[in-house]
């Protein structure tokens, strides 16, 4: 087998596997969300489909497929149909650069466990994931309904307030790493200590901004079911509605994976040196992958946990928090990292 064929094949396999991980996780996140919310409210949650309600996502999916696909008369048909796809596609695209685990050996060749190990890594994620907001805004616009429009407008305003903080919060991480490649960020942490201890402020800002970026409570202004009926997807039904959901949950997974990668050591197993992991060969890689998934899942749980704890912010409070608190905090973190870098290593890296 020549190298080109091997690269194409291995990439295809990786795409199929990783996309399915994201898809299945998104499906089961809907169940986790309902179960955890139920437990937190002393309820039982879905428990009728399958053992303990485990097959609920499948029942939900079937229901979405067989529901009537209503396109209301007042909508702009082209944009209305396009919008769910625009929400869904960027979430999956951003998945491409996530390093799922240490490299594995297949047929004498080394395979990186990320679909595309781009040099611009994080920039790619930010560039792609912020495209998702176009889908939400277009959905609000094309629906030609006041609630949808308000939701769409809020989404774009929210994106502007938070994208900057999101970007600035990770600058310190890359100052310390000296590379934008996500693989390098993980290897640096695997050798040293996790970035969450080095850049706590950056971590805090990134987490808050990630909540805003994925439109999750306490920043689910575009949906805001108590004020805007259902926000941008008020007029949507059937599988188009499900696609918004899928997009939201996949984006949640991408950002959980990013938090794990950037701040929680990626596929680094705590208290185990990277060389020990490498000595185990592919089993070590599997262990690393498990560690990475565990961290991502823990953060996904955190998403749900926060959703059922903190009430929604008012719109101006959200903008105020974004511009007046998180932006200065992110700048302070950058300043501190630079300062420490100069003081302790003299060459700008820590």
């Amino acid at each position, binding site marked *: 087998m020549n190298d080109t064929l091997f690269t194409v094949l291995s990439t295809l396999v990786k795409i199929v596997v990783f996309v399915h991980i994201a898809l299945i996780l998104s499906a089961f996140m809907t169940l986790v969300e309902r179960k*955890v919310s*139920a*437990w*937190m*409210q*002393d*309820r*039982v949650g879905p428990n009728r489909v399958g053992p303990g309600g485990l097959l609920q996502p499948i029942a939900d999916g079937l229901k979405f497929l067989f529901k009537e696909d209503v396109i209301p008369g007042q909508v702009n048909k082209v944009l209305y149909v396009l919008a769910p796809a625009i929400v869904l596609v960027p979430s999956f695209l951003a998945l491409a650069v996530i390093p799922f685990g240490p490299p594995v050996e297949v047929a004498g060749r080394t395979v990186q466990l990320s679909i595309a190990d781009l040099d611009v890594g994080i920039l790619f994620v930010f560039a792609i994931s912020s495209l998702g907001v176009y889908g939400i805004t277009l959905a609000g616009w094309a629906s030609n309904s006041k609630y949808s429009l308000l939701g769409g407008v809020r989404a774009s305003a929210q994106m502007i307030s938070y994208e900057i903080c999101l970007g600035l919060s990770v600058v310190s991480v890359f100052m310390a790493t000296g590379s934008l490649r996500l693989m390098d960020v993980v290897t640096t942490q695997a050798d040293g200590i996790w970035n969450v201890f080095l850049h706590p402020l950056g971590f805090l800002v990134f987490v808050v901004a990630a909540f805003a970026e994925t439109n999750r409570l306490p920043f689910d202004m575009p949906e805001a079911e108590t004020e805007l009926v259902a926000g941008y997807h008020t007029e949507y039904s059937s599988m188009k509605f499900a696609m918004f959901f899928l997009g939201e949950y996949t984006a949640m997974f991408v950002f959980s994976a990013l938090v794990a990668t950037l701040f929680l050591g990626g596929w680094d197993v705590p208290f185990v040196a990277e060389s020990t992991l490498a000595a185990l060969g592919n089993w070590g890689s599997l262990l690393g992958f498990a560690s990475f998934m565990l961290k991502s899942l823990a953060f996904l749980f955190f998403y749900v*946990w*926060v959703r*059922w*704890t*903190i009430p929604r912010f008012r719109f101006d409070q959200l903008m105020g928090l974004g511009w007046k608190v998180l932006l200065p905090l992110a700048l302070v973190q950058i300043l501190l990292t630079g300062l420490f870098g100069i003081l302790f290593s003299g060459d700008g890296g820590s």
Partner: protein
Amino acid sequence: MGKLVERRALKWYEELYLPAIVSGLGRTFRQMFEPDITLQYPEQRPAIADDYRGAPGLVRDDEGREKCVSCQLCEYICPPKAIVIRPGEIPEGADNEHVEKAPREFFIDMLRCIYCGYCEEVCPEEAIFMTSVYELNGATRAELVHDKPRLYEIGGTRIDPIKKWKGK
């Protein structure tokens, strides 16, 4: 006059809201392990009190005779006019022929019934009772108009200490 409540100024760390958020997260996390209060309805049933005002039903006495004498007081008092009675005679030769009247037809429209219990209260013969039946459903409107057999099915037999018609 409203009462003026002094509001304590927030301390600097309280203004960060982080302690409040953390304590809130702790609260919800602990709540996850509290016992559930959900009743799994079709399998588990709530405890129904004896004097629950559910669907009204007609009762028979311990000799299996219908107690209703078709006086139509319940029909008269029923606020939403849910009860319709067509009185009939008790045929001569029956052992309770002296009672004279019995309902030929007895309808309670459960789509109209407001479960006020006036019919039970007004009945001089203690023949109609509010029961603990609370599950009423039907595929058609006609199904929810209870006729005599259905009403006796709901009411069943009720044995009272006072045998009003005994030996009369």
